[in-house]
């Protein structure tokens, strides 16, 4: 993983992003703030849907809720990816060697896989019968929520270990 990250850092350096991310006094703080906002949109958005699937707020119709909030979560994910690349570019060598950062990426891969599996498996469930999701869906949602919260936590702790 370290080799892959260092290679990615090398590519970012070649296209000038490393100098830009490091050299500007404003780019890094802005990328930092955007990374926080993206996390709010992602964890907040998918978190509410996950909690509804798990069984909270049963009076709220699940499918319209998901249709409203999933795009917010996806927009948050895109924002995380873009701002994350800038944050990585500024400090790539140290991050490539950080076990905390590597753990975050591994959790992210699992969370994305879980989300893709859920969306694919329940792609037909747009009708009334998805008001009360079956246990499998609820476990998947609990797994999803736990993963996203863990990713945000581990991400914040990178600076501390």
């Amino acid at each position, binding site marked *: 993983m370290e080799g892959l990250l260092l290679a990615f850092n090398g590519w970012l350096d070649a296209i000038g992003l490393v100098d830009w991310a490091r050299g500007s006094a*404003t780019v890094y703080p802005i990328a*930092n703030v955007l990374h926080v906002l993206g996390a709010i949109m992602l964890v907040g958005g998918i978190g509410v849907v996950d909690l509804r699937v798990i069984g909270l707020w049963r009076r709220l119709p699940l499918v319209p809720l998901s249709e409203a909030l999933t795009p917010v979560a996806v927009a948050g994910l895109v924002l995380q990816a873009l701002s994350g690349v800038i944050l990585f570019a500024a400090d790539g060598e140290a991050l490539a060697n950080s076990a905390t950062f590597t753990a975050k990426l591994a959790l992210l891969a699992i969370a994305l896989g879980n989300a893709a599996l859920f969306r694919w498996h329940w792609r037909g469930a747009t009708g009334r019968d998805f008001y009360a999701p079956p246990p499998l869906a609820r476990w998947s949602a609990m797994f999803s929520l736990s993963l996203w919260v863990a990713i945000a936590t581990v991400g914040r702790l990178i600076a501390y270990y």
Partner: protein
Amino acid sequence: MSPFAKVALAGALAALPVAALAHHGWSSYVEDEPITLRGPLKDVVWGNPHGTAKMNWRGGEWDVILAPVSRMTARGLSLEEINNRQRIRLTGYVRRDGTPEMRVERIMIGDKTVELR
């Protein structure tokens, strides 16, 4: 978008540059010119969000920015190794804007190197 939402969004965007002023992350330092200093640290503070110290350099007293306590400990540094005017070496970067402040990349104590980045 309602008028209220427009004002709220404009306010949020206007607040972003303020973050740049308050921040002293790595981008505030001149990273292409690492400096290596030898000498004792003074006034070592082993605290969060990051440890600090002072060091005499180039005729003045400089603020030395260390790392969070959890990181310093995890990387193998202890307060006792630096708070008694021990002669250490450190590699760091000075602040872009001329403020006498440096951020430390690594500390070397005898044969031991502690990476703080």
